[in-house]
């Protein structure tokens, strides 16, 4: 499933989607950034409530397909701009991480 397909199927809000046709394979939930870098796999969707600038670097270096911000978390414009420049897809939802993971898991 692609990032665009995921966005549409579950009514996620596209915060910034520079590479919407990127394929998603598997996922990881977590807010501690070193755990994410240690455990998330390439092409995963990463569900988190973290919103600071470092999530862009972690998403880019871990090479995940997309970040999904849970619990209605919002980003500062500077974070969005950096994500756009680095080609990092970011989506958002009002749902919690547990609910999002349960929803998305069967599709990826």
């Amino acid at each position, binding site marked *: 499933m692609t990032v665009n397909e995921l966005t549409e199927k579950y009514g996620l809000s596209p915060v910034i989607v520079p590479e919407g046709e990127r394929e998603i394979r598997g996922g990881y939930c977590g807010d501690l950034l070193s755990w994410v870098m*240690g455990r998330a796999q390439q092409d995963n969707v990463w569900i988190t409530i973290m919103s600071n600038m470092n999530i862009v670097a972690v998403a880019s270096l871990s090479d995940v397909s997309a970040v999904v911000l849970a619990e209605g978390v919002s980003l500062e414009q500077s974070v969005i701009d950096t994500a756009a420049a680095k080609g990092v897809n970011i989506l958002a939802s009002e749902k919690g991480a547990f609910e999002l993971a349960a929803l998305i898991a069967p599709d990826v």
Partner: protein
Amino acid sequence: MTDSLTFHFDVDGENFVSAGQASVQVKKNLRELGFPPEIIRRVSIAMYEGEINMVIHAGGGTADVDVFEDRIVIVLSDHGPGIPDIDLAMQEGYSTATDNVRSLGFGAGMGLPNMKRYTDEMRIDSTVGKGTVITMCILCS
């Protein structure tokens, strides 16, 4: 002796938000050189963890990356407080980071273990009161 490409970076110890610039640049360079994605991922995560550590604990430092055909060598050097007990520091979950650093999502005690996880060789030379040099090697063959 094979020729290598060398990249040098100064890591700013004051700026947590911009931490990772060196890693992102190395990722870009390796991609342009045509290295496989999984090698690039391992190099850039190991280097980012090292950069973050230098910002958190040492007030910055330097990062040197030597790119050979069959391996990539990263040397991170700082003049921070040093690591008194390296075995303890290598344990997953052990951290001396402040609450402020933890609130940003770091300081989980996984930095050094991740650096070891993603590299084929890692050596830590540290002297308390003088600083730390970490040498990491990733084989590409």
